[in-house]
């Protein structure tokens, strides 16, 4: 039998049996809804409804209700789009990349991180789709035979690549997530007594019975899906960055964008995972499964990706001067000293300086501090996209092309609204879905559970 080094911190604390894991994780599904959950859901759905109201007003009136103008024609919408897509990346990184690297600690958080991915990508998709204006013809982005003579989308365009990247990313993440859920739905199905709910989970579990051959296939599918999702996650944010990098706008036209965007995405995504998981472990009593070690690992990822992002900021700045291109260097001087300098410095503080505090073990193992940091990082990453997008285009080559951007209440309402929709979905997920991958966690219990590790140390090999 495989044994883990006693030096490694156990991943499941206390003495848990397989049955305890099922009990602990199925408890929120089988029990009555908490008061806190009901209050949170009410608040989230009110915010979500406000966001939906803003969307309806936008569709009814036109994109003019946003603060966009002739000069700044991409602003909050694309900022929010990139922000949400970036958040989504952590889920795939945890479930796919960490699976390939055989990181067992991912098993406690992969399910909720993947759910976060799916909901975040959905929120991201709202922005470009509604930015099209005539949203009912959104399907024109697909190469469908049509009566317009025949008109095809332009496959040379980065925006077209994005359509393919985002839709592939969304559907593949959804399938990956759902396939992992099937055996856990089967566990819930076999535990429930109430026939109506048993029927629901019976349909959701697709009749999974845990046969040996099915498990072999299941593991193969997980591995191959992780294998294809890994380059996929890197390609998606690279392609998002190419929306900017393939243009000729100073401040956007840089080859550093793909790696810089990908690490920024992982950085913000891990921060969002921490925000969600820290609340979840407390309210759903999952402290034995998601504990300080898991949080510390995630904080280490935040230091690494935050530092990569910091290096990218400084490289950009240096290259803009070193290139000798005056438009390029002006774009960056304008960033840190122009009218939107406050946004630039906000981004610098939140993304470059604050994650460095995690070098202190005391701070990165402090849950309250981590929670505050996770929110700071997400604010910083929102400003990063805002700085890149708005400060680059509000100053054009000639001063007559200079403009300003002011967000309208609909801009703000739609953004807040997507946060509401996101949390509504996540709360529904937390109530009706197994938030930790039961079958995966059980498979590591005997090697990484605290009491079993102690037992293994005392018994000879």
């Amino acid at each position, binding site marked *: 039998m495989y044994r883990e080094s006693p030096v490694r911190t156990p991943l499941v604390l206390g003495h848990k049996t397989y049955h305890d894991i099922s009990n602990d994780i199925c408890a929120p599904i089988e029990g009555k809804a908490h008061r806190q959950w009901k209050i949170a859901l009410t608040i989230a759905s009110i915010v979500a409804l406000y966001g939906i109201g803003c969307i309806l007003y936008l569709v009814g009136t036109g994109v003019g209700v946003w603060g966009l103008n002739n000069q700044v024609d991409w602003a909050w919408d694309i900022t929010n789009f990139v922000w949400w897509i970036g958040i989504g990346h952590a889920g795939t990184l945890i479930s796919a990349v960490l699976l390939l690297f055989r990181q067992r600690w991912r098993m406690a958080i992969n399910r909720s991180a993947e759910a976060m991915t799916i909901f975040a990508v959905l929120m991201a998709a709202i922005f470009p789709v509604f930015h099209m204006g005539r949203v009912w013809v959104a399907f024109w982005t697909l190469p469908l035979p049509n009566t317009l003579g025949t008109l095809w989308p332009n496959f040379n365009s980065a925006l077209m690549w994005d359509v393919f990247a985002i839709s592939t990313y969304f559907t593949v993440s959804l399938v990956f997530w759902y396939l992992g859920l099937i055996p856990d739905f089967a566990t819930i199905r076999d535990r429930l007594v109430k026939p109506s709910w048993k029927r629901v989970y019976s349909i959701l579990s697709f009749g999974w*019975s845990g046969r*040996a051959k099915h498990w072999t296939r299941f593991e193969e599918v997980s591995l191959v899906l992780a294998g294809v999702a890994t380059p*996929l996650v890197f390609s998606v944010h690279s*392609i998002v960055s190419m929306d900017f990098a393939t243009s000729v706008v100073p401040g956007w036209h840089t080859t550093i964008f793909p790696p810089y965007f990908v690490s920024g995405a992982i950085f913000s995504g891990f921060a969002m995972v921490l925000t969600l998981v820290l609340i979840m472990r407390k309210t759903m009593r999952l402290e034995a499964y998601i504990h300080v070690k898991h949080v510390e690992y995630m904080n280490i990822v935040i230091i690494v990706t935050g530092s990569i992002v910091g290096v990218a900021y400084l490289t950009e700045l240096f290259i803009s001067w070193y290139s000798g291109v005056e438009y390029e260097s002006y774009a960056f001087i304008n960033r840190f000293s122009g009218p939107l300098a406050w946004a630039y410095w906000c981004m610098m503080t939140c993304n470059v300086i604050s994650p460095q505090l995690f070098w202190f073990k005391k701070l990165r193992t402090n849950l309250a501090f981590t929670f505050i940091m996770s929110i700071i990082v997400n604010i910083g990453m929102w400003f990063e996209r805002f700085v890149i997008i708005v400060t680059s285009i509000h100053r054009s080559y000639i001063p007559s092309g200079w403009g300003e951007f002011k967000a309208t209440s609909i801009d703000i309402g739609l953004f807040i609204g997507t946060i509401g929709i996101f949390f509504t979905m996540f709360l529904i997920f937390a109530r009706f879905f197994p938030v930790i991958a039961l079958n*995966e966690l059980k498979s590591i219990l005997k090697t990484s559970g605290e009491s079993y590790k102690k037992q293994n140390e005392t018994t000879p090999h």
Partner: protein
Amino acid sequence: MANKVIHAMYDDEQKLLEAARSLVAKGVRVKEVYSPFPIHGLDPVIGIKRTRLAICAFLYATTGTTLAILGTWYFMVSDWGGINIGGKPNFVWYENAPAFVPVIFEFSVFCAAHGMALTFLLRNGTLPGMPATNPDPRTTDDKFVMEITTEQNPGFPAQDIEDLLQPTGMYELSIKDN
């Protein structure tokens, strides 16, 4: 002789694995194992071959690649006759191929992932509305069941199999007529 189905239940995957090893060594065929999570090392013991799903995924991916290459060629080069967008004409496919790489890659991944997932579900017979076939609801929680049939083991009457199973540390044993 009526077929008898023997279900030996264990509370630990290692015990089941040992039991399966000892029975197979004595020539008994194990029909099926139901478990709440994959038991590593079990497949070769009970004679399960390596799955070929990964090969399927590769074939789906190459199909995707081919379709995407054909598509970009048809839309951009053939049907539009080398349309010139932003000073970048599309007269021949390979000159613009770098611009098509993202779409070709994404479409290959799309086909590989969905093709494989569908094949997995169809091949398993796990589809919406299918009934569960595990012999005991506890096998999706914390118990492991080994299924042996007398039909598959003509040389062993049910009593013999039971005798062989007795020393393996079972949690429960049930023998049913089928």
